[in-house]
């Protein structure tokens, strides 16, 4: 497993740095861009920022720097056409061409994406800067853009919140696949089989028995590379909170409300979630939020504790076997049904992804009164969904599981409650009760809309050297 050292540093592990900036770049001068690539892996740290490798040494660097290339980017750099043809279709076509599979319709449709995503063919390279301090972002950016090899089309920037919170108020960053042969101190046993390395790196065994993804040749280019779906996902936090209000009010009037929230349970929920004086309505909001996601907002999985959140529980280790109280349609269950029964049995564990995301936009303070007359600033997530096959993992999950709900006949034809492109006139979500019955929530609007993105290839360090050495 020695050649893992050749993998970029942000794939198998996360850096956990608070400031992240994405530079969306166009190749201005192919020759200079190739020299830029060669310099980025030269080990001489004073010019072009150095690509952070998997083996970053004993101490994590102050700043980290990684790159992804689009198909247009590979072309612009002069990648031989025989090599280009070996990349998978979905990557060649690009994210905008796959909009229907990804649910990028209506307000999420690529036609509505702002600059620079309105000109996808010009996006060649997406470089990511990770830093402990905000001013470091500027310093690295300046070094990256010096020399004019690459033209900056635009940037996107995010900053993580305390306790790994995300805009909708959940604790995130609890789960990532653990890989065979990779030791990561931050990842504990999650009750799921370790993912074969081929889940995330080209040239290795995949989760589907005997199946191998095509490795673009020469091996130096394709081997140990992977693919990333970079997504700018706008989150309607106000809409989400409003929906929780409405659903909680409806539930309060429901004759089975005590099955949803046992009388008196609001005190325990308020205590764990640190919400003082939580009313029954307020607690029902948290119950709805927990069911939509599959986790309470503190991260407690419903699969382990469906009635109240429990800070003492290990948040990673659970499964959906037997009579799990996690809704079949809950977001985390739709993304990864783990070992639970699904229609496409062969797909259990085969569509797993590495997720690296950071929120953008200001923190939403739930206790602060809102001025309805004032427009809310844009908030969202800069997400990276990484896997060795975009088609078999990211797209398969998005299309069959999040959008269609094919994995379980009880959720088929409903969309993911949190990320789905829901239309309130048709959307629904079944809230399970202890008794085994369900209450159907309706009228879920779209909470998340896509505001840009690109499919990129995350080359190994050898591949960056290969591209840097091309002569055309």
């Amino acid at each position, binding site marked *: 497993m020695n050649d893992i050292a050749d993998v970029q540093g942000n794939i198998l592990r996360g850096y956990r740095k608070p400031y992240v900036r994405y530079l969306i770049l166009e190749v201005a001068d192919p020759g200079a861009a190739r020299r830029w690539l060669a310099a980025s892996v030269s080990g001489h740290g004073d010019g072009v920022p150095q690509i952070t490798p998997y083996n970053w040494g004993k101490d994590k660097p102050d700043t980290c720097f990684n790159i992804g290339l689009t198909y247009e980017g590979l072309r612009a750099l002069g990648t031989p056409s025989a090599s280009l043809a070996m990349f998978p279709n979905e990557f060649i076509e690009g994210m905008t061409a796959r909009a229907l599979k990804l649910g990028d*319709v*209506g307000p999420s449709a690529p036609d509505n994406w702002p600059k620079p995503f309105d000109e996808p063919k010009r996006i060649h390279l997406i470089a990511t800067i990770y830093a402990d301090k905000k001013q470091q972002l500027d310093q690295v950016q300046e070094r990256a853009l010096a020399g004019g090899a690459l033209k900056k089309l635009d940037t996107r920037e995010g900053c993580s919140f305390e306790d790994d919170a995300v805009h909708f108020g959940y604790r995130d960053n609890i789960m990532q696949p653990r890989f065979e042969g990779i030791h990561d101190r931050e990842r504990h046993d999650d009750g799921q089989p370790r993912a074969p390395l081929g889940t995330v790196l080209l040239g290795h065994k995949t989760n589907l028995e005997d199946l191998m993804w095509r490795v673009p040749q020469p091996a130096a280019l394709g081997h140990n590379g992977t693919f990333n779906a970079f997504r700018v996902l706008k989150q309607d936090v106000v809409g989400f909170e409003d929906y929780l209000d409405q659903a909680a009010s409806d539930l309060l009037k429901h004759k089975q409300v005590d099955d949803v929230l046992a009388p008196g349970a609001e005190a325990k929920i308020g205590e764990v979630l640190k919400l003082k004086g939580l009313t029954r309505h307020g607690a029902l909001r948290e119950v709805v939020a927990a069911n939509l996601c599959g986790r309470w907002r503190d991260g407690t999985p419903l699969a382990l504790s469906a009635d109240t959140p429990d800070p003492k529980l290990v948040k990673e280790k659970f499964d959906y076997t037997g009579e799990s109280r996690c809704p079949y349609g809950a977001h985390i269950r739709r993304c990864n049904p783990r070992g639970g029964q699904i229609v496409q049995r062969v797909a259990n564990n085969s569509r797993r992804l590495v997720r690296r995301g950071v929120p953008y936009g200001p923190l939403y303070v739930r206790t602060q009164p809102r001025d309805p007359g004032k427009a809310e600033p844009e908030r969202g997530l800069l997400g990276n969904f990484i896997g060795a096959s975009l088609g078999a993992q990211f797209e398969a999950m998005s299309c069959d599981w999040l959008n269609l709900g094919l994995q379980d006949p009880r959720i088929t034809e409903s969309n993911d409650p949190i990320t789905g492109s*829901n*239309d309130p*006139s*048709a*959307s629904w979500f079944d809230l399970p009760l202890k008794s085994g019955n369900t209450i159907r929530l*309706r009228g879920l609007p779209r909470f998340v809309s896509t505001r840009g993105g690109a499919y990129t290839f995350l080359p190994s360090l050898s591949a960056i050297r290969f591209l840097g050495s091309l002569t055309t």
Partner: protein
Amino acid sequence: MVDTSVAKQLVQAIIDNLPAPVGPRRPVHTIGIGVKGEFVASNVARNYCIAEQFQGQPVPASVRFSNGLGGPDQHDGWSDVRGMATRFHISDGKGSDLIATTLGEFFVRNVDDFFKFTEIAKLAPYSRLSWWQKLCDLVKLKVPDRDPYLNETENVNAGALRYANQHRFAQLGVFQAAVIGAPVSYARASYHAVHTFWVTAPNGVRRPVRFSWQPVAGVCNTDPMAVPQDKYLFKELDERLKKWPARFMLMMTIGEAGDAIDDCTKPWPGTRLRISMGTLTLLKVSEDQEADGERISFNPNRLAPGIEPSADPILEARLGAYEASREIRGGCPFKWSKVDAG
């Protein structure tokens, strides 16, 4: 709400394009026949819609079949859109209407389109193509225009085609109308209510739907190569119903988010949920054709509680236009107001 002047203009635009004045009669679908029958909802219909006609008890129904062409002359055998207007006589005394035609999709999206269409699709002289023009079409792998029917000296085909060539939304409706043919019987055609309606289920869920009547006797057209007869549909229906009732199945298709709700030029795919809502049994041709064929006034917006019109601008325009037309011909002033329709 359509203002009445627009409604009157709509009716006038239709009247202006008639081959001959019709007097106090409908300007289109002028020729028609009233039939008596009964509708019985299926055992699942009530799960989707609370309207009285879908609760399962037999509901008396009045139906008017018609030829789409405007004008006093009857040409049953001509290729033409046919109408099937149904009133469910529910207990509120006002009734609930379902107006359907053999055309699956309309050719204009709104009133503005319609006025432009009537400007372009005016009656124009129609004559037989010469043999060399036809040969020329065949060489171009086109299908030559059909020969005019006996006494057919003008029609709107050329104008409608011109309009469709400029507007893709109109192409389906115009194309379908052009090849629609003539049914061997009013009871042997499928009729579609074209617009989207919203139905409310007992649990309060509202769904966008489209309705179609499907003839139990099957769809059958006359031979397009044969010389068309002008008058046979009334007699055929009368003789048929004297022997045996004719039945239609009411199919309701449920639209999905993203389907065209407010645009009747756009079809819904056959992959949508389709609910069998009940069976209409036609029992006899009405003895009083003046009351049941002529004076009865249908309106696609006359709907039982539990069915609501969509925001389709054509559906909305029909609310006023049908009323304006009814006033002109002194149609039966039904116990009806616009408030009831909403």
